């Protein structure tokens, strides 16, 4: 449904107010999930007959059936306006939206005693609310120089409003950041989907006196035998113990608050210059590029120089130890960083030789150079702040950087010929 209203004024060239409401559905899960499918995979066989060269195929139900599974529905309400000002040089488009996704199709973790794979269930509701603002200015100076500046800014807030189990939580999986690490993301009522879950930290114990003072102040210590160089896990409820139920909390949100797109274009006589950039702000990224069981010979990035190796050497990254260690295996905000970035994605500079040789047979003979991903403005210490990876198991998790190949910087030279 849409409502349009065009209005003509002196200072305003064009105004259109819009309102719409829509509903669409999604059933993008495997077929026959209301029954239990039977698997004959190559890990399910057994060797009878004292014969090491043969196996009998095994068959077993690989999920529990869910006869009540149904479509996921998305309802979106959108209110917006389009306007043009100043001889249509300034374009404004504004949208406010509220999108509810109901009966979210998800595989919720279930008790291992159920004995087989979890079924798809309609596991909850998610709400995305926000606004989008697009501004564009296109003008010219004199006869030969035209320019345009287009930006769009979007604000989005994501929240889970219902989870269909008594706990109100869908737990993330373990062993995502590294083998042996605890659960690091969850979907929980009242929180953004896939928010990072772990302990807060307050630096590193620099010496034994530090440890004693911490303990004396009534704070619990997670490590059973704390040493200088260990992480100070914060005892949130100040009960003298560090327990995951009471002291773990929301330590980050992988979803950006704001996303920004920016396009600049300039043209002068035969030259053209286009710059496209995009950015995201307000999100956090969880980063780790190493395995956590350290031995004598390991491969590290230069991040490892920031570890604690003596009093006063670091208040950020704990000491390295042989083998695994509570400092690393318990997910905490030592891995969480702000991931705000502005990436200049494309700069293209070209010249159309038609302007120089108007009689040539081509209607356009343009030579251009492009730089893709030339630079990124960010304080994130990892390779590329554009991270979509969420651990692999749950598609609703994101923002986990375990060392994926970053977007490459590319230089291109090209020619456009039009006949």
């Amino acid at each position, binding site marked *: 449904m849409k409502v349009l209203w065009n209005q003509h004024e002196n200072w305003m060239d064009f105004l259109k107010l819009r309102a719409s409401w829509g509903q669409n559905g999604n059933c993008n899960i495997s077929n026959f999930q209301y*029954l239990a499918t*039977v698997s004959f995979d190559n890990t399910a066989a057994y060797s009878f007959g004292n014969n090491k060269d043969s196996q*009998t195929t095994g068959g077993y139900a690989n999920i529990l059936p869910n006869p009540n599974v149904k479509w996921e529905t998305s309802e979106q309400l959108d209110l917006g306006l389009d306007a043009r000002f100043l001889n249509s040089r300034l374009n404004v488009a504004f949208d406010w939206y509220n999108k509810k996704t109901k009966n979210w199709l998800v595989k919720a973790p279930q008790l291992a005693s159920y004995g087989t794979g979890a079924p798809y269930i309609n596991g909850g509701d998610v709400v995305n609310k926000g606004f989008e603002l697009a501004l564009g200015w296109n003008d010219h100076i004199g006869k030969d120089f035209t320019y345009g500046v287009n930006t769009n800014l979007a604000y989005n807030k994501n929240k889970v409003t219902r989870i269909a189990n008594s706990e109100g939580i869908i737990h993330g999986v373990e062993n995502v950041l590294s083998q042996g690490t605890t659960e690091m993301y969850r979907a929980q009522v009242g929180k953004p989907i896939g928010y990072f879950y772990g302990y807060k930290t307050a630096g590193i114990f620099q010496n034994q006196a530090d440890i004693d003072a911490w303990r004396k102040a009534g704070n619990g210590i997670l490590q059973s035998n704390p040493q200088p160089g260990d992480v100070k896990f914060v005892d949130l409820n100040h009960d003298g113990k560090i327990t995951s139920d009471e002291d773990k909390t929301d330590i980050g949100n992988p979803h950006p608050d704001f996303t920004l797109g920016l396009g600049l274009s300039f043209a002068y006589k035969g030259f053209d210059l286009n710059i496209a950039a995009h950015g995201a702000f307000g999100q956090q990224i969880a980063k780790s590029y190493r395995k956590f069981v350290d031995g004598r010979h390991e491969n590290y990035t230069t991040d490892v120089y920031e570890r604690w190796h003596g009093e006063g050497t670091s208040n950020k990254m704990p000491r390295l130890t042989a083998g695994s260690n509570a400092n690393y295996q318990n997910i905490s905000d030592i891995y969480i960083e702000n991931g705000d970035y502005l990436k200049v994605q494309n700069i293209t500079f070209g010249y159309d030789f038609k302007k120089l040789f108007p009689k040539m047979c081509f209607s356009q003979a343009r030579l251009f150079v492009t730089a893709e991903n030339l630079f990124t403005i960010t304080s994130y210490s990892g390779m590329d702040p554009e991270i979509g990876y969420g651990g692999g198991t749950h598609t609703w998790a994101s923002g986990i950087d375990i060392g994926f190949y970053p977007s490459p910087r590319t230089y291109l030279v090209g020619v456009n010929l039009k006949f």
Partner: protein
Amino acid sequence: MAATAVLFTGCENFLDTQNLTEKDTSNYPQTLTDAEQVVAGVYNNLNTVCANPQYSFLYAAELASDDRLGGGGENDKLMQAEDLMMNYSSSMLEQFWSDRYAGIFRANTAIETLGNCSGYESDDQKKQMIGEAYFLRAFYYYELASFFENVPLITSSSPENKTQATPDQTWGQIISDLKTAIELMPAKKFGSNWVEAGHVDKWTAEAMLGRAFLFYTGFYQKSDATLPDGTTKVTNDNVISYIDDCVNNSGYSLVPDFRNLWAYTNRCTKENYSYTKGKGLKWVEDDNAVNPESMFAIKFSKFASWSTTIGYSNGYALHMGIRGGQTLSKTFPFGQGWGAGPVAPNLWKDWAAAEPNDMRREASICYIPNELPNYTKGGWTDFVQETDYFAKKTAPISSYKSDGTTCWETFEQDMYDYSTVNFQLSNIHDLVLIRFADVLLMQSELKKDVSGINKVRARAGLPAIAGYSDNALRNERRWELCFEGTRWNDIRRWHIAETALVEQDNQPTYYKGVADKNATTHNGGGYAARYKATNGGFFPIPEKEISLSNGVLKQNSGWGTSDAEYSGWK
């Protein structure tokens, strides 16, 4: 009107779809082949656990017993934690809990659906297959109940978030399932026109019933077991009649020479090994031969790989192989692995004192300084709780290549033409879980007579004993069945665990190759204290399951506190 009615019903059928490409539970299992696949799927769970043996009951029982220490490298904290009955890492045993319940789910499905299949060759065949499913469900619950005590009892393929059953209920179900298996399975051995080797039979179920009954009545100090119907009891006399049937009618027998039971007598290795050379020995499983004493064994195959599952190979042999860091010829004939479960020196000492002329001691335990003169201590310079004694029976075994100087990592690479694999995948000899000698000893224990025990002693070349005594029987079980997974439940059900376990304290060991003692400050108070704190050696229920159950499952005593946490040997 009629026309429109027809139109509407036509619409409904049009919208329903049938699964034309996959099988699902609406159309499977239906035929005899389907039924055989379902049964294979239940047995397959034995291999699933072999992919991660370190979390399993059999492995923890071996390390926790008084016959073996933890071992492994300084980073193998799980191995040491299992020896000390302590916790290491969150949800330590989640893998095994999850694996075994998957097996139970498949057994439940089999029990519910095998009766509906058609195409059986005979009623006996149908009963055999259903009986096997009952046996395996009982075996899987036996392991869960011995490991965790309080487990949810799921006996249907539509599971629920149930509270943990009491031991009486769980063991009642286990014993009932075994009794059902015994009654269903016909008195037939595997062979032509019947099930293949690797399937269990009626007599295996009788043996397992003896084992389960003895543990339940011994540990919980009961005189009999009550079945789930609430009234039927299984008594000592009932079990005696089953065991007598097994001894007299099963056709299983003792292999004449004890040494021939173990893989180090295989034809590729024996003539290069000083202990077996020239003695006329012949391994019972050479070239896929049938072991007449093996009643229930996990079977492995050449299908083990990183892309299928490593559980198709014997992960226990790998884990308990000699910790590496040296060439195979220095540890010959023993293959290499991770060094879990070094033999506790007190076992050798007790054995030598009680039964000095027992050939089984050297047939079971390798005294490294004598047998392996070139052995280098320390593994990869990180070996913890290393001792001078190594368990030979179930070890990986290597053999020399035709050049006479380099070795195959395992003899199976030669014997079965399986040379393209890594040593982590190439142990594929059977893992025997129940053998006939155990049945004879159970017969003596139940009847309190010496018939069974003397047959076992005679096979070992030892003189008969005149009268039954619990002490004689207990010792005989320890010597005959060492390293076969039975000692742990034995010392628990005889209530001698605390005194037995502390014998391991301060035994001579090596730490990273340097002489040390089996003593650490990170031991939660010691073997006896941990045994008591855990109410008899029960291990922790995975915390992940407890939190997923939303409070329905409760943790076992002695776990979840900081003094139960193992942080490392030093």
